[in-house]
């Protein structure tokens, strides 16, 4: 029988009259993994923030082991044994792994001196347990994002939490690292710990979770056990309608070569050469460390290159800044919207128009705000961006809608080539489909697209041709009809494929 560790009942939360959670019940069982799914904006983050003491619920009650509790701050939630691992990393980059794991709880001698060898030895134990192959004295900024995420997990586990909430934990992990994570989760279950697993990756949920709770628009749609439900049913619950095709793909006319990159070389990539035809969607697949993002940033003018050429419609071009790139009609939508895709403190209108302000300029540099408003409203409508209005600050939008704003910003520059870097990362199923539909719309309008993605089914579903990279070099090209998950993976790990 299931042992109830945490029971959240009739939880309602409003911000200045706007209700974001309505009468939600959420259960966490001992020794089990509860999946929490829902579209972005469904209320998952808000619910977890109430559980971890970041927000205070407007109504409802929380029970821990059948006793009523109140989490008025993060400390009380932590002391109750609840830990959370965020989607966006919370590590101090300039400190070592060990220092990060024991931040605030460093082992000290009676005089208050930090016992460094004890700290690093203990930290190393946790790293070994997770199979993370790093020295605990290594600085966090020197290890990859995927490994940093594992450090976050080590930190939460080391606090001996009874409930661990994981928010999109596998977003930046390789398949091997994901497997390790799952085996650690199983160990935790056997130790009687409970996990809340928030993820958009439904396949993973079926692999590792015992139960699933689905939220939609701030309300509880239902709680089920995993063996009594299937993927389609979960999706239906999430979006409230049947999803016919997950990867809608259309055929378009593919024209001549529009972009040619030859022997591009810098500190990140080596001798990269490829072509892009007009109207084509080129997928760029690879594992972490393949430097795909770095390649795109080089083409976009953020990183310089020492060797190689870029040709646009057979004319050689030199791109030394994003401004140059945009002038040539090449736009880039970043994979890390929080750091460089959007400006959280500015509103929707200001974000969307940021790359195109010259179009709204009048006398003496005057910016026509009403014209801006009209233009940005058009994008909000066409892309179904959920916001209270053009004046809403980006920080209040859900991840998927923030991503759409980032895309809209690039779109407004009327690019001929659109580079999308992990466009659906951290985006829910409903919004994903909307983004795929948008990609199809761009294709129909003759835009050429380069899509970097770590989601192999997505790459197979959407792209015409796939370029696979491995450690900064092009590993190979695959046409859509000959590509399989296995052949892509083989190239991604650097195996020679004939």
């Amino acid at each position: 029988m299931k042992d109830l560790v945490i029971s959240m009942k009739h939880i309602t939360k409003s911000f200045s009259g706007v209700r974001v959670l309505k009468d939600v019940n959420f259960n966490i069982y001992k020794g089990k993994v509860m999946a929490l799914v829902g579209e972005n904006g469904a209320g998952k983050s808000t619910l977890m923030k109430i559980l971890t003491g970041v927000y205070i619920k407007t109504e409802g009650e929380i029970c821990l082991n059948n006793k009523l509790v109140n989490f008025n701050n993060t400390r009380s939630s932590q002391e109750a044994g609840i830990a959370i691992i965020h989607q966006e990393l919370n590590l101090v980059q300039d400190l070592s792994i060990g220092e990060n794991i024991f931040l605030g709880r460093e082992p000290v001698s009676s005089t208050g001196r930090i016992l460094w060898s004890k700290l690093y030895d203990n930290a190393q134990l946790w790293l070994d347990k997770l199979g993370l192959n790093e020295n605990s004295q290594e600085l966090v900024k020197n290890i990859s994002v995927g490994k940093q995420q594992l450090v976050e997990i080590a930190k939460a586990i080391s606090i001996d939490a009874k409930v661990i909430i994981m928010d999109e934990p596998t977003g930046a992990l390789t398949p091997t690292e994901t497997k390790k994570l799952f085996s650690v989760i199983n160990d935790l279950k056997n130790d009687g710990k409970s996990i809340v697993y928030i993820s958009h990756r439904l396949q993973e949920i079926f692999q590792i979770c015992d139960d699933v709770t689905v939220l939609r628009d701030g309300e509880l749609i239902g709680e089920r056990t995993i063996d009594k439900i299937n993927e389609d049913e979960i999706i239906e619950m999430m979006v409230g309608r049947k999803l016919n095709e997950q990867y809608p793909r259309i055929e378009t006319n593919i024209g001549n070569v529009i972009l040619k990159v030859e022997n591009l070389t810098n500190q990140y990539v080596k001798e990269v050469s490829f072509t892009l035809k007009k109207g084509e969607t080129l997928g760029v697949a690879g594992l972490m460390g393949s430097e795909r993002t770095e390649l795109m940033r080089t083409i976009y003018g953020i990183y310089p290159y020492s060797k190689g050429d870029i040709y646009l419609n057979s004319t050689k071009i030199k791109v030394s800044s994003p401004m140059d790139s945009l002038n040539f009609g090449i736009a880039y939508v970043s994979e890390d919207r929080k750091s460089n895709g959007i400006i959280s403190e500015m509103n929707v209108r200001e974000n969307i128009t940021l790359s195109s302000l010259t179009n709204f300029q009048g006398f003496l540099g005057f910016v026509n705000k009403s014209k801006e408003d009209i233009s940005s409203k058009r994008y909000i409508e066409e892309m179904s961006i959920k916001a209270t209005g053009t004046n809403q600050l980006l920080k209040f939008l859900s991840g998927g809608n923030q991503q759409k704003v980032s895309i809209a910003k690039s779109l407004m520059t009327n690019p001929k080539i659109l580079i999308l870097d992990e466009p659906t990362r951290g985006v829910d199923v409903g919004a994903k489909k909307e983004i795929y539909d948008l990609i199809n719309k761009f294709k129909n309008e003759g835009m050429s697209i380069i899509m970097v993605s770590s989601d192999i089914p997505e790459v197979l579903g959407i792209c015409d041709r796939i370029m696979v990279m491995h450690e900064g070099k092009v590993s190979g090209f695959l046409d859509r009809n000959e590509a399989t998950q296995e052949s892509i993976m083989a190239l991604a790990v650097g195996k020679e494929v004939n």
Partner: protein
Amino acid sequence: MLLVTSIIITLLNPRFLNWSNIVTVLRQTSINAVIATGMTFAILIGGIDLSVGSVLGLCGAIAAAMISSGMNVVVVVLAALLLGTAIGYFNGTLITAGGLQPFIATLGTVTLLRGAILVFSQGRPISVGNTPGSDEFSGIGTGFIGPIPIPVYIMILVFLIAYYILNHTRIGRYIYATGSNEEATMYSGIKTTRVKRFVYSVSGMMAALAGILITARLGSAQPTAGSGYELDAIAAVVLGGTSMAGGIGTIAGTAIGALIIGVLNNALNIMQVSSYYQDVAKGIVILIAVLLDRKQKSSR
């Protein structure tokens, strides 16, 4: 906040609220207000300009020397403004191309320039002299249009232009964006290095303008002029609600901040508070204001 402060002070000393004192307050505030406007630009972008005091002193000294040698007043004013702008541009280049932190870069220039002033002036004040140009020049600082001193008109004009730039122009938008998230702004295709150089040039120009106003008013340029003025300017900006992290703040806020500091300075003088205690009082007021502001802004 301004209203509250003024009311409290008037109650404490009725001499505060008469017309001639108000004029004095406004005139004295105008110097800091002009510098603070330039400083707002620098802080909005997430930086800071510590060199304004020395720029003020140097441009004031050069202006005095030029006007007393008989040059045309318009030429002198333009030259001084240009010098301030150029120094600001230099600061901007140190920060962008040189990669120096704004704090460090402008710390370097403030010292360098103060030395330049001493060298130029040989440690002695430079009078604006007795040429016909000198009278016109002094008029900028001492003159009136109607009942209101010219520096006050200049202050208002500066506020209006700054407000327009920050709220209604492309560069203004870029300034807020760069201060809020420099990387995202750069990724969006904006040359943030240009924005930074612009901002520091503005700050330098404002400091030069303040130098002109002070020199005109006093009739001479002291080698120590402007020393420490950066603190009052930063205080005005911070009191006005601008965040040191960048991206948040308004000119209206800075205007109010400058007025509060001006009122405080004046009131403490009227009440004949020793100048040693004046700084203590000012510091306390600033801390209280900023803390109250923080409490208001945080919401759960």
